[in-house]
């Protein structure tokens, strides 16, 4: 490690979730690098050392399983423990030391590598479990090397979590009672860290180089609005974004002069409806249906699907629910679709494109949605992800109408669709802009690539141009144009989006109060002027400067 910081100083990153919090900083244990091979003097002691490390990994996973309050999480941890305690694995470690003369680290690495290869070869679900094997290997190596276990610390007191980046899997371990703020070295405004932080209402800073050089336990102050991380400062009371606007406006979203802007929630299941209600959401702007399909080798049947949709429609009775058909592929592969071997999944068969190969999946889902709608009488709008052409949109709308669903729309995630927004609105009832993917495809920048985070900034004028094109088309057609990407959760950007012609903003429920306050703070005319100013900017920084 380079220089370790403990003194007074400040680091700069990108603030992606507002609020200020302070606490001692703890780093997520990092993946240990495999050291250079070392000569083994006492092979029996070396076998002992390797097997003791695996035993400690098993014991640690067992303790975590015992502590886990969620039965599914506990089950997963126990299955992981069984893998680390596998006798064939131990045998292969023993052989690598005794016969191969390898040190404990290389013996462990080699033993996992052979199973890793077998998992990769089996493909599908097992190929996804390769990450589990890598995690077990990393834990065993960290133990041999006397390093902290990779993963999220749980010290039993509030702290600021620092990490290189956070993966969706980390969310299971992250305890919001202990973690008061997030800082990551890489990542961008649409990375999982940002999405997670907004969902949990935690201040967060991403793309903050140097944060991992701060010594564990150093008091830091994280400002999620400015992106500043100060070290060596006194503790301050926590002021998260959601508490910053406690006395803000309530009721339906509207500008200062009463122009309505629907404020909606993004949800994944009926479990999220309570949070949406608490935040005063006027409806659901994005009901993701992937949750039902995850980790399945066969498609959920029509009854199971209808039951899940009915649960949400019933809970949202009297309000609009925009439900998105299955958005699988790319970063969300589903085992039952067996999509192995795509050279570039982000540009492959994903979203609505799956209907080219498996039209039955869409037909079944639309029928299940229609049934749940008929049972509940809810105001259900259905939309398709990853639409690029008018022909695709028209085919989807036809399929939805045929299933008995009166309102069909499409997501705008591909520049081709944004450029033809007016033509799309001749065949569908509404548009919903997914800004995360629209950024990714407009700037040809992978959402997961931290070094390109600046390209994925939702304030990029080119992205705002495309949003403006959709807004103009919606105004012309008299049809709704919403945003359901993370850009909708940025309170400072909200007035600009409204000025670009967006009629609804859908976001994590926790972001709603701040966005409602931001929209209420400007007249519609001001919003339009701010939008025009932002479009004249050369880059995101200038766009922010001109409008705030």
């Amino acid at each position: 490690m380079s220089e370790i910081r403990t003194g007074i100083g400040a680091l700069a990153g990108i603030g992606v979730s507002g609020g200020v919090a302070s606490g001692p900083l703890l780093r997520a244990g990092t993946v240990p690098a495999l050291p250079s091979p070392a000569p083994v003097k006492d092979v029996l002691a070396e076998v002992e050392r390797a097997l003791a490390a695996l035993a400690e990994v098993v014991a640690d996973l067992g303790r975590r399983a015992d502590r886990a309050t969620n039965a599914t999480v506990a089950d997963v941890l126990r299955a992981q423990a069984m893998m680390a305690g596998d006798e064939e694995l131990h045998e292969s470690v023993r052989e690598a030391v005794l016969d191969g003369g390898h040190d404990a680290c290389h013996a462990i690495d080699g033993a996992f590598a052979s199973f890793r290869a077998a998992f990769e070869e089996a493909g599908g679900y097992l190929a996804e479990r390769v990450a589990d094997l890598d995690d077990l290997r990393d834990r065993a190596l960290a133990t041999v090397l006397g390093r902290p276990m990779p993963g999220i610390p749980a010290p039993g007191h509030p702290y600021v979590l620092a990490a290189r980046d956070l993966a969706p899997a980390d969310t299971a371990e992250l305890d919001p009672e202990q973690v008061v703020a997030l800082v990551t070295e890489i990542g961008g405004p649409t990375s999982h860290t940002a999405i997670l932080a907004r969902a949990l209402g935690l201040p967060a800073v991403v793309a903050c180089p140097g944060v991992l050089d701060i010594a564990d336990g150093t008091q830091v102050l994280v400002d999620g609005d400015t992106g500043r991380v100060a070290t060596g400062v006194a503790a301050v009371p926590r002021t998260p974004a959601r508490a910053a606007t406690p006395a803000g406006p309530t009721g339906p979203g509207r500008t200062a002069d009463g122009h309505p802007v629907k404020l909606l929630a993004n949800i994944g299941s009926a479990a999220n409806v309570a949070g949406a209600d608490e935040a005063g959401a006027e409806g659901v702007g994005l009901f993701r249906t992937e949750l039902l399909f995850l980790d399945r080798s066969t498609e959920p049947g029509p009854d199971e699907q209808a039951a899940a949709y009915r649960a949400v429609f019933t809970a949202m009775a009297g309000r609009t629910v925009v439900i998105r058909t299955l958005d699988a592929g790319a970063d969300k592969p589903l085992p039952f679709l067996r999509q192995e071997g795509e050279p570039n999944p982000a540009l492959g068969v994903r979203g609505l494109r799956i209907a080219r190969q498996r039209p039955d999946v869409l037909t079944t889902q639309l029928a299940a949605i229609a049934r749940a709608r008929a049972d509940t009488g809810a105001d259900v709008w259905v939309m398709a992800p990853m639409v690029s052409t008018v022909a695709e949109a028209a085919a989807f709308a036809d399929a939805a109408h045929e299933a008995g669903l009166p309102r069909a729309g499409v997501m705008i995630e591909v520049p081709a669709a944004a450029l033809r927004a007016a033509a799309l609105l001749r065949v569908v009832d509404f548009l919903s802009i997914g800004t995360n993917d629209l950024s990714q495809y407009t700037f040809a920048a992978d959402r997961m690539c931290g070094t390109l985070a600046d390209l994925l900034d939702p304030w990029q004028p080119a992205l705002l141009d495309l949003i403006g094109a959709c807004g103009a088309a919606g105004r012309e057609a008299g049809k709704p144009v919403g945003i359901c990407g993370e850009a909708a959760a940025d309170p400072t950007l909200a007035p600009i989006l409204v000025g670009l012609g967006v009629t609804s903003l859908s976001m994590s429920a926790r972001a709603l109060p701040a966005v409602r306050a931001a929209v209420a703070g400007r007249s519609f005319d001001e919003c339009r002027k701010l939008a025009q100013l932002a479009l004249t900017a050369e880059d995101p920084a200038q766009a922010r400067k001109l409008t705030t």
Partner: protein
Amino acid sequence: MPTRTVAVGSASGLHARPARLFVEAAAAAPVKVTIRVGEKKPVPARSMLSVLALGARCGTEVTLEADGDGADEALAGLAELLARDLDAEEPGDV
């Protein structure tokens, strides 16, 4: 040698929880049981990693083999477990 061939009944295949239940049962058996898919190499049924690496999906036929006292009973119990849809029995599913 006593042998039983059975199709995997769990919807998600011989993965995750179904695999764990099977491996636990195999480890508790009084005899060493092996499992294989088709004519591929048999692997120890009490090895979680080896069982997972079979890549058996729902409907895949697997063959169990064991020798010694109690082999027949052990195979019958394990075959019955494999044939069931263990995913459908999952508690606390979210």
